[in-house]
C-alpha cells in the first residue's frame, strides 16, 4: 500500500513556493517523493517528527536486506507483488549451504569446495548457490569459530551464522563482520541481551519465532533500537505451514502495509526433512512462495541444478521474454556437411530447437535470428522474422563459411517466407521448409542430413 502524492502533500509546509527542494511546488515535490524520484531531506522546512514519519511511509513495504559483501552480496526483499504475473519478482532467494561444525573435516572441506565449483551455464546466465551457513552444534566453541574463519579465509561468500549460543554467535560475527553476515537466531528469549551486541557491529539479523505472532514484537523492538535489516523465520514445520506463514507475511506486508512484517523471510528445508530429495522439493515450494533465504543441508549437481533453474524461471520478469543472443550456435560438433537451421531468439524456442536437434545426435548449426524474444510465428507476424531480415542475418552471421552446401531449413510455420528469403539470399541458398513443430525435428533431420552427406 504505497502512499500517494496527494497524501504526502498534506504533510508538507505548502505555504510558500520556496522551490528550495528543486521543484516548482510542494505538490510536484510530493509526487516525485511518491514515485521514489527524490528524498525527504530535500525539504528544509520539515520537523524531525514529520520527516521521520514520511521516511517511514515512503520506505518499501518489504525491507531490502543485504547479506555478504562485494560481488557476492545477496540482496533480498524490496518486493512489490504477491504473484509474479502482477508485475515481477525482483530479488531471487539466496540459496545457502549448511555446514555443521559436527561434520568431519573432510566433509567440511568438500562442502566449501562444492559450493564454489557447482556452477551451471544456462542460456545467458551462470547459475550458482550463494551463501554458506556455518552451524554451531559441536559444543566446542573454538571448533565453530575455526570453521567460520576457514570459510572467511577461503571464500568470498556471504554467511548465515547459526548458533543458539550467543557468545559463539557474536564471536563468529566479529571474525567476518565486514562480510555482512546474517546472525541467527534472535528469539524472544535472547533479544534483550542481544540488542547491544548486535549494535556493536551492525549486520543483518535473523529472527526466529514459533509463530508469526511471536515475530511481531521482536521486529518492533529491534526496529525501535535502530536494527532494521531483519529476516524472519516464523517456525513453519512442514509444507502446509510454510505456505500459510509465507502467505500471511507477504499479504500483511504488501496488501495491508503492516510494517512489523515488512521483511524478507528465511526458510530451513534442512531442518524440515531427513530425505535429500524431499528437502529439495520443500525448497522448491519456497521459491515461488517468497522465501528470501533457503538453507539446505547438502546438495549435489543433480539436486542443485533443478532448484537453480526453477529459481531462474520464477524470477524471470514475465513482462519481457527471455531472449538469446543473435548468432549461429553449434549443436554437437558440426562439420561442413551438417544441416543449417534458422529460428527466432525467444529462449524457449531456441531451447526446444536445440534440444530436439541434440536428441537426434546429428550435429548441426542452429542460426538464431534476433526477433526481440518472440516465438517464430509471433515474430513473423510482427515483422521481425521476415525473409528479408533473415536473409541479411544469414549473410552476416558467417555460417556460410562453415558449410559447403547451401541448404537452409526454416520453421514449417513460416513456410510462406520461402520465396522472399530465397530472393534476399540472391538465390544462392535453397530454402527447405522444415517441420511445423520442434517435435517433428526428430523425424525430419536424420533423412535430411543423409541427403547433405550423400
Amino acid at each position, binding site marked *: 500500500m504505497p502512499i500517494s502524492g496527494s497524501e504526502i502533500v498534506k504533510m508538507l509546509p505548502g505555504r510558500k513556493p520556496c522551490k528550495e527542494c528543486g521543484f516548482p511546488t510542494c505538490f510536484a515535490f510530493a509526487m516525485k517523493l511518491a514515485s521514489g524520484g527524490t528524498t525527504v531531506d530535500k525539504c528544509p522546512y520539515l520537523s524531525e517528527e514529520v520527516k521521520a514519519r514520511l521516511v517511514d511511509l515512503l520506505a518499501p513495504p518489504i525491507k531490502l536486506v543485504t547479506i555478504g559483501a562485494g560481488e557476492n552480496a545477496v540482496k533480498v526483499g524490496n518486493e512489490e507483488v504477491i504473484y509474479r504475473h502482477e508485475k515481477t519478482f525482483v530479488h531471487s532467494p539466496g540459496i545457502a549451504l549448511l555446514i555443521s561444525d559436527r561434520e568431519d573435516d573432510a566433509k567440511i572441506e568438500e562442502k566449501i569446495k562444492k559450493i564454489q565449483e557447482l556452477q551451471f551455464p544456462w542460456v545467458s546466465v551462470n547459475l550458482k548457490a550463494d551463501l554458506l551457513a556455518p552451524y554451531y552444534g559441536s559444543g566446542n566453541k573454538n571448533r565453530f569459530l575455526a570453521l567460520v574463519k576457514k570459510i572467511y579465509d577461503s571464500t568470498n561468500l556471504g554467511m548465515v551464522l547459526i548458533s543458539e549460543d550467543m557468545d559463539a554467535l557474536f564471536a563468529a560475527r566479529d571474525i567476518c563482520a565486514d562480510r555482512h553476515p546474517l546472525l541467527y537466531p534472535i528469539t524472544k528469549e535472547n533479544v534483550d541481551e542481544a540488542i547491544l551486541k548486535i549494535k556493536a557491529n551492525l549486520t543483518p539479523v535473523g529472527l526466529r519465532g514459533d509463530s508469526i505472532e511471536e515475530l*511481531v514484537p521482536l521486529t518492533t523492538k529491534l526496529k525501535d533500537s535502530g536494527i532494521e535489516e531483519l529476516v524472519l523465520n516464523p517456525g513453519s514445520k512442514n*509444507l*502446509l505451514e510454510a505456505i500459510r506463514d509465507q502467505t500471511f507475511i507477504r499479504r500483511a506486508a504488501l496488501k495491508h502495509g503492516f510494517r512489523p512484517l515488512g521483511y524478507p523471510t528465511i526458510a530451513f528445508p534442512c531442518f524440515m526433512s531427513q530425505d535429500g*530429495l524431499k528437502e529439495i522439493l520443500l525448497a522448491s515450494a519456497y521459491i515461488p512462495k517468497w522465501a528470501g533465504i533457503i538453507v539446505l543441508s547438502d546438495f549435489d549437481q543433480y539436486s542443485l541444478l533443478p532448484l537453480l533453474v526453477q529459481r531462474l524461471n520464477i524470477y524471470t520478469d514475465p513482462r519481457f521474454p527471455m531472449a538469446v543472443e543473435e548468432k549461429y550456435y553449434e549443436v554437437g560438433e558440426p562439420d561442413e556437411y551438417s544441416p543449417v537451421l534458422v529460428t527466432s531468439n525467444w529462449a*524457449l524456442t531456441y531451447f526446444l530447437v536445440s534440444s530436439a536437434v541434440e536428441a537426434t545426435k546429428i550435429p548441426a548449426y542452429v542460426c538464431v535470428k534476433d526477433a526481440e524474444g518472440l516465438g517464430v510465428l509471433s515474430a513473423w507476424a510482427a515483422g521481425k522474422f521476415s525473409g528479408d531480415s533473415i536473409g541479411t542475418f544469414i549473410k552476416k552471421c558467417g555460417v556460410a563459411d562453415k558449410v559447403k552446401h547451401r541448404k537452409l531449413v526454416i520453421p514449417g510455420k513460416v513456410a510462406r517466407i520461402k520465396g522472399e528469403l530465397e530472393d534476399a539470399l540472391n538465390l544462392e541458398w535453397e530454402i527447405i521448409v522444415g517441420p511445423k513443430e520442434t517435435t517433428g525435428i526428430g523425424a525430419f533431420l536424420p533423412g535430411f542430413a543423409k541427403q547433405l552427406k550423400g
Partner: protein
Amino acid sequence: MEYKAPVEAYAGVVREVIIGEGRKSLKIGGENILPLHFFDQGSNANPARFALEVLDMEPQDWPEHLIEPFKDVISEPIKWAKKCQDFAVDAVSLYLVGTDPAGKDTPADKAAALVKEIAEAIDVPLIVYGSGDENKDAEVLPKVAETCNGMNLLIGPVLKENYEVVGRAILEHGHTAIAQTPLDINLLKELNVKLSKFFPSDRIVIDPLSSALGYGMEYSFSLMERVKQIGVITKDNMAMMPIIANLGDECWKTKQAKESKEQGLLWEGITALSLLLAGANILVLRHPVALSLVKETIGVQ
C-alpha cells in the same frame, strides 16, 4: 501495531468434475480457496489428484531410469496400466502417441479397442490423450468415445480446430472433455465459451499446457495461477474449471531429466509441485517415485 492474520474469502467456486463411472469415479476440483490455502475461509472439496502415464506403444526415447519401474510391462500397455495401480494413483492417463500420423499411425478403431481394454482392466478412472494431431484426433477420439460409451473417460485434447466433432462425440457418449489451448488465457476462455455452447461446463477440465522446468515452466506456472485466481477470486465463469497439468511428457523430453535418475525425479517433481502450487487439480506424471515424492512433500498420504 496489532497483527491480525490476513485471512481471505472468495466468491468463486471451481466446478466439481466427476470422471470415471460407478465405483471407479473420482471427483476433481470443487474448491473455493487458492491451492493449499487451508488457512483462508472456504474449503478444498477434493485434494489434488495424481495420475501416471502409460503409452499405447513401447516408448522410443525414454531413459533407462524412467523405464525401470515398468520394465517388465513396458511393451504391454494393459499390464502397464494395471501396474500403475501399485503406486496409489488416482487415475491412469493413456497417451495414444502411436496414433500420430507422423509416427506409427495406428488406426482409430485399433486405438479405441485398446482404450476400452485398459479402461476395463483398471480400477481407477482413465484419462485418454490423443496424439495432438488435430485431424487424426478428430478420427481417433470420437471412435474412442463411441467404443467406450458410458465409461466417463476424461478425453482430450479438445482443440479449437476440432472441438465440434471431438466435443460432440465426448458428450454424446457420456465422457468428460479436456479443453486444451496453448499457454494463453484469452484462447483458453475463448475455447471454453465455444465449447460451452453445447457442452456442459461441469464436464470440462482445462489444459493450458504444462511446460517443463527450464523449458518455459514459468509460463505454465503464471497462467495456471492467473486462471485459478480469476476463477476463484473474480468468479469468472469461463475460468472456473479444474486444471489438468499433463507434465510427464514435457519433463522427460529434456536432456536434464534423461541425464540421471535423481535429476530426472527432481525435474519432474519440481515441475509438478510448482504447477500444483499454481493451481493444477490433477497432475499426470511418468515416474512413480517422482509422484510419491511430491505427495509426501505436500503431506498427503
